């Protein structure tokens, strides 16, 4: 069996010139990650710099309305506003141990870009972030944040000028600069070992949440729910629960506009198996194998592929993958904000939306844990025209 497969999915579909740095990274995972000094330093960064551990929060008002107990895992409270920092601190520290002074990263909206830039600044490393030219225009304040943190932001004008093209550009950069640069990949996807590496850094979410649920409620949740784009926050929550047969696990893809055709980011539900960015996984593509542009109101879910472990968990049936549309996510965004005083990221709003829309599937009195992977402050410009269509209160 080849390395890095989850059932039928995964692999290392990259140019031969990228095999040495991938091998080097596999080696570093074996040699460096288990070292106590590495683990101590990572622990300090996660707890004292990024703000772990994050609490689980009970939602009293929505629970009353829904008839079951809704809990949130509060990754939105982390430094830089989302779970992404769990991964970037881990990878940046690993790169430093490997003797690589520079990081390169891709970003769609900004979450991973900002989290990488912050990790680089903290650890005294150089950082280049590739971002689709389209996204640079849409996200000017976030580009500013990355630049303030010392990152060089490079706009990518090739292809569809969005996240997938930023990944292409970052891979090309890595081919050239592999001796001095680590590719700090943003999600649990891409060529082996990234799906495993990112999952391992994000699994802190599920390990904490599992223990916290036991401590606070005396038993495991009946449902755990997370939004799935590339899938790093979801696999981070899910992985420590996979052996708990009584826990139902739900991943939520972005159905986009909900119209037929390809205005979505839901490759598990609406795509087919294919090869992109180093992995064999589920993919939005046309009949000739060309990658189709994705769409979601949430930039963090706007990607035509998904991590191979999710494709595998869908194939085995261990995880059920549902969908939420742009409009359902906006409704959930408003509902959680008004009822519980928590402004969720539009990504996380998809997970909340699935719960709100599946009241009938969830038994009364059940315990439902949603991964609130990020906060919604970054989404104000996107939600404003939907929530205040007349422009009032601007």
């Amino acid at each position: 069996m080849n390395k890095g497969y989850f059932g039928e999915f995964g692999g290392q579909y990259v140019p031969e010139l990228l095999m040495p740095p991938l091998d080097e990274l596999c080696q570093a995972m074996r040699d460096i990650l288990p070292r106590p000094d590495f683990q101590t330093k990572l622990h300090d960064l996660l707890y004292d710099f990024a703000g772990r551990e994050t609490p689980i929060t009970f939602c009293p008002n929505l629970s009353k309305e829904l008839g079951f107990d809704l809990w949130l895992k509060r990754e939105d409270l982390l430094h830089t506003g989302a779970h992404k920092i769990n991964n970037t601190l881990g990878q940046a520290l690993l790169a430093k141990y490997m003797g690589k002074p520079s990081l390169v990263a891709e970003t769609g909206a900004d979450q991973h870009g900002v989290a990488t830039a912050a990790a680089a600044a903290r650890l005294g490393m150089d950082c280049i972030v590739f971002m689709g030219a389209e996204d640079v225009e849409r996200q000017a304040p976030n580009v500013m944040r990355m630049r303030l943190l010392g990152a060089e932001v490079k706009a990518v004008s090739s292809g569809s000028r969005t996240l997938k093209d930023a990944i292409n550009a970052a891979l090309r950069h890595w081919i050239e600069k592999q001796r001095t640069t680590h590719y700090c990949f943003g999600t649990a996807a891409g060529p082996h070992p990234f799906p495993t590496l990112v999952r391992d850094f994000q699994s802190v979410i599920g390990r904490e949440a599992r223990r916290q649920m036991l401590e606070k409620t005396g038993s495991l949740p009946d449902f755990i729910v997370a939004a799935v784009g590339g899938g790093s926050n979801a696999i981070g929550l899910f992985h420590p629960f996979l052996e708990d047969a009584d826990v139902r696990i739900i991943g939520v893809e972005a159905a986009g506009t909900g119209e037929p055709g390809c205005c979505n980011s839901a490759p598990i539900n609406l795509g087919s198996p294919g090869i992109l960015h180093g992995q064999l996984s589920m993919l939005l593509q046309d009949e000739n194998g060309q990658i189709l542009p994705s769409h979601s109101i949430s930039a963090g879910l706007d990607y035509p592929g998904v991590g191979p472990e999710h494709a595998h968990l869908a194939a085995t049936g261990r995880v059920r993958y549902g969908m939420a549309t742009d409009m359902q996510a906006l409704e959930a965004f408003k509902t959680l904000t008004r009822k519980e005083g928590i402004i969720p990221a539009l990504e996380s709003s998809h997970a909340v939306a699935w719960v709100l829309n599946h009241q009938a599937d969830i038994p009364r009195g059940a315990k439902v844990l949603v991964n609130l992977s990020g906060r919604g402050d970054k989404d104000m410009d996107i939600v404003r025209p939907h929530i205040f269509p007349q422009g009032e209160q601007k």
Partner: protein
Amino acid sequence: MNRTAQTVIDQRLAQARAEKRLALIPFVTAGFPTASAFWDIVEDLDAHGADIIEIGVPFSDPVADGPVVEAAGVRALEQGANLHALLKELEKRKNRLRAGIILMGYANPFLQYACKATPKTRFTPGLGIRSALDRLAADCAAAGAHGFIIPDLPLNEAGVWRAAFEAHGMPLIPLVGQNTTKARMQEYARHSKGYVYVVSVLGTTGVRDGMPPELVETLKRARAGFSLPLALGFGLKHPDQLAEFAGREYAPDAVIFGSALLKHIEAGNRASDFLRPWKNA
């Protein structure tokens, strides 16, 4: 298929060797600059010195390529280029073309062609996928292709693909570069046929002025590691770039040009004029 049988690719390279000259391998993107002009270019190159022609199968996300090849692919895709159409047109010319024909493209368009041809395929690496890849190989061989280059299919993933291609007499050409160790080259050598694509730079395709200083060591390692002919590519535009290798035992046996040739074509020049300075190099 007799394992020792000489393929068309072997024959073309052997002929150049017998004539004591570099074998010339132009790369052109299928459907570039237009669907019909593309085939005129292939026929022109074939008639005027190309030993092997690498036909690029365009892909939306070509991570091993620089801006020139990517832009050519985008333009071809906008005009509807795809593998089906390419094979149909290639088949019409199958008995007229003298050059060896290599299909060069990323794994996914080949995979989707294969799986569409055999709709019940399950994606079990090494099992169900083999029959689909057999069908792809059979169709490509029937259309007149003689081999494949798939830049995102390194040794670790290539096994089932190579087996399917070789069952139809077509090699899967390996790519190696300055960060490929001697041991890794030897591993490739155990599995490979046809020729070896030596990537001149640690980078993507694209025209460059000089050649990196590490190239001599890369070529020496490849010469020692493989018994197959060495074809040098990435960055080539003029034979002067190879002057320092002349007469050396590690000098490449063949040269591949892509980006420089595409720019030459884009500028309205006749494709085969590009080959002229290389002919007696």
